[in-house]
């Protein structure tokens, strides 16, 4: 390294921004050359003069001006005056009438008839769940959380064909089998009465039976779809119904799980009208087999749902108990990250490998008031991020959640978990409206500097009861 090279490095050396090899080379040169040492001292003095400058404080008017400008930016734009002059108002009025007419026509047009089908509203919130509530047998609760084993299954919409298509297919097959049986019996009767033409079955009772069968099968299929939809909603919305020992603090609020528990149940037994239809219109011996098949399908699916719910509920209760237990002595505590610990969560795939930007660690202490709700929120937040995670109970109401996510998802998880409960409820009521104002404003931030490859964040969330979290600070 020449003397000029060393001189060019002096500022970086002063700032501690040299690599190891360069730093040693500069130090060796400084040790050998007094002139370089003098130059370094002058550079240090120059930097110190700048650093010693007092800082100007912002004017007191700056913050209020910023606030006012933001409020102005959030307000909806005033209608432009130029729209209200000249020929434009008449044209606008005509266009508005035309649009209104089209909308009215579309709204009042009768819907196409759908045979044997009923609309099922998607389960999205508590109100929708309440509408789907139907009396069920006591003890037929469906609760718990998704431990990942459901992740390998198809989503309800995929696993179960649309109710109306299924009902129609089954009804058609049922009717076809029944008609074929009737024709076979007629042929047999006709063969016994030589020459006499076999009396064709009158279409009316067959069609009627077919419609009845289609309706009943559609109803059964819809019941099954309800159960699946409710289970899916419960998986998305939380945590099943609360065990008694985890009563919600404050005013009780009906839990999502409680509604689910009431609404889901085993597939109903075959309706009497099916049996009657089978007996009156078709060969009696065919009906029990068909009915048994239909009942078995529904019963099997319902039993599967209930078994999984029971298993989830058991594991959920065990997890809650392990979090609440008295913590063992520190020497006996299992180190974080080592077995045994419970792994939960959706099958989000393996955590992303750290890429060129490296991995950061983000550790947060988060207090909670309600363990039951806290765990539900954690599960929902990480499910929304499609994250695999590990949860380790520590005891005394403490637990730790660890996951690795790309930074944007990690920030989203943190944002979701640190949002106050009242804001979550408010957002729910408003349909996510708290962000609507912000979304209405265009983002104008300059593009972040190049070189920003995705960085994985090791997110470590330490949860504790609010009172104890305050003591730990």
């Amino acid at each position, binding site marked *: 390294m020449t003397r000029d090279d060393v001189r060019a490095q002096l500022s*970086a050396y002063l700032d501690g921004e040299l690599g190891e090899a360069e730093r040693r080379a500069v130090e060796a040169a400084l040790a050998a050359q007094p002139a370089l040492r003098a130059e370094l001292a002058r550079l240090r003095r*120059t930097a110190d003069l700048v650093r010693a400058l007092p800082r*100007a404080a912002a004017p007191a*008017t700056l913050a209020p001006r910023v606030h006012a400008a*933001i409020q102005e930016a959030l307000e909806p734009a005033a209608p432009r005056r130029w729209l209200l002059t000249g020929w434009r108002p008449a044209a606008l009025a005509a266009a508005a009438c035309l649009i209104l007419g089209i909308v009215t026509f579309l709204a009042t047009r009768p819907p196409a008839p759908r045979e044997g089908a009923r609309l099922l509203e998607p389960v999205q919130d508590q109100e929708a769940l309440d509408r789907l509530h139907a009396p069920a047998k006591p003890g037929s609760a469906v609760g718990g959380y998704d431990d990942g084993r459901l992740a390998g299954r198809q989503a309800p919409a995929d696993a179960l064909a649309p109710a109306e298509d299924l009902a129609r297919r089954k009804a058609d097959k049922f009717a076809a089998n029944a008609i074929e049986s009737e024709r076979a019996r007629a042929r047999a009767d006709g063969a016994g009465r030589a020459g006499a033409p076999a009396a064709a079955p009158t279409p009316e009772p067959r069609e009627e039976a077919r419609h009845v069968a289609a309706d009943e099968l559609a109803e059964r299929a819809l019941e099954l779809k309800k159960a699946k939809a409710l289970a899916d909603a419960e998986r998305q919305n939380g945590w099943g119904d609360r065990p008694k020992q985890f009563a919600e603090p404050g005013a009780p609020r009906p839990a999502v799980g409680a509604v689910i528990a009431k609404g889901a149940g085993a597939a109903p037994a075959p309706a009497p009208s099916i049996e009657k239809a089978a007996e009156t219109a078709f060969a009696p011996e065919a009906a029990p087999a068909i009915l048994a098949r239909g009942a078995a399908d529904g019963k099997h699916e319902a039993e599967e749902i209930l078994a999984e719910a029971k298993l989830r509920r058991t594991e959920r209760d065990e997890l809650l108990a392990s979090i609440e237990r008295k913590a063992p002595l520190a020497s006996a505590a299992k180190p974080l990250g080592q077995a045994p610990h419970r792994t939960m969560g959706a099958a989000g795939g393996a955590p992303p490998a750290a890429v060129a930007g490296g991995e950061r660690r983000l550790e947060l202490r988060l207090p909670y008031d309600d363990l039951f709700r806290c765990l539900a929120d954690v599960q929902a937040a990480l499910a929304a991020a499609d994250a695999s995670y590990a949860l380790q109970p520590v005891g005394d109401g403490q637990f730790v959640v660890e996951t690795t996510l790309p930074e944007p998802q990690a920030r989203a998880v943190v944002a979701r978990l640190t949002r106050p409960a009242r804001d979550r409820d408010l957002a729910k009521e408003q349909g996510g409206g708290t962000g609507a104002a912000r979304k209405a*404003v265009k983002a104008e931030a300059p593009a972040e500097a190049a070189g920003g490859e995705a960085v994985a964040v090791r997110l470590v969330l330490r949860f504790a009861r609010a009172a104890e979290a305050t003591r730990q600070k």
Partner: protein
Amino acid sequence: MPEVEEADELLVARAQRGDVAAFGSLVERYQDTLFNGIHRMVAQREDAEDLAQEAFVKAFRGIGGFEGRSSFYTWLYSIAYHVVISHRRKTGSARCLNPLSFHQGADEDGGHGFEVQDGSDGPEANAQRRETLERIERAIAELEDDYRAVIVMRDIEGFDYETIAEVLGCPQGTVKSRLHRARLALRELLKDLVV
């Protein structure tokens, strides 16, 4: 984990959801630092206030795009830097800084600005100190824009070379050489103070 980082992240997260009050807390936290940094790059105090306001509003509008790859203040400063560059393009490079503008705040707004007088020394020492500071400020104002920017970012804002490179959109090697030349230029302007 540093408390400041955690608090910033919570505020940013709430601001990203439209919480104006949370963003207001960030404004309160960084308005002095940002204003000081901007004022070192533009001549007039009024311009610095306007540009700081513009930078904060732009930050609020774009906060949804903030992904946390840098600290919030670094991101905010980057916005402010570009706001200053745009201002310079519109109005011409302002190389003459009025050092007195740094001291006007205490008189006009009440309670702001800074105190250069040290009660332990006499009035002469205070006057000399004030004069020295004004000379330094004038020297910074006389630097070329690029030199002034790196001096402000390194020796006033305290950014490391990597952050400066991000803000400027140039390689770290450029930052290293530019900062060295900037200090040499500043040293030349202040040679009687740099002994």
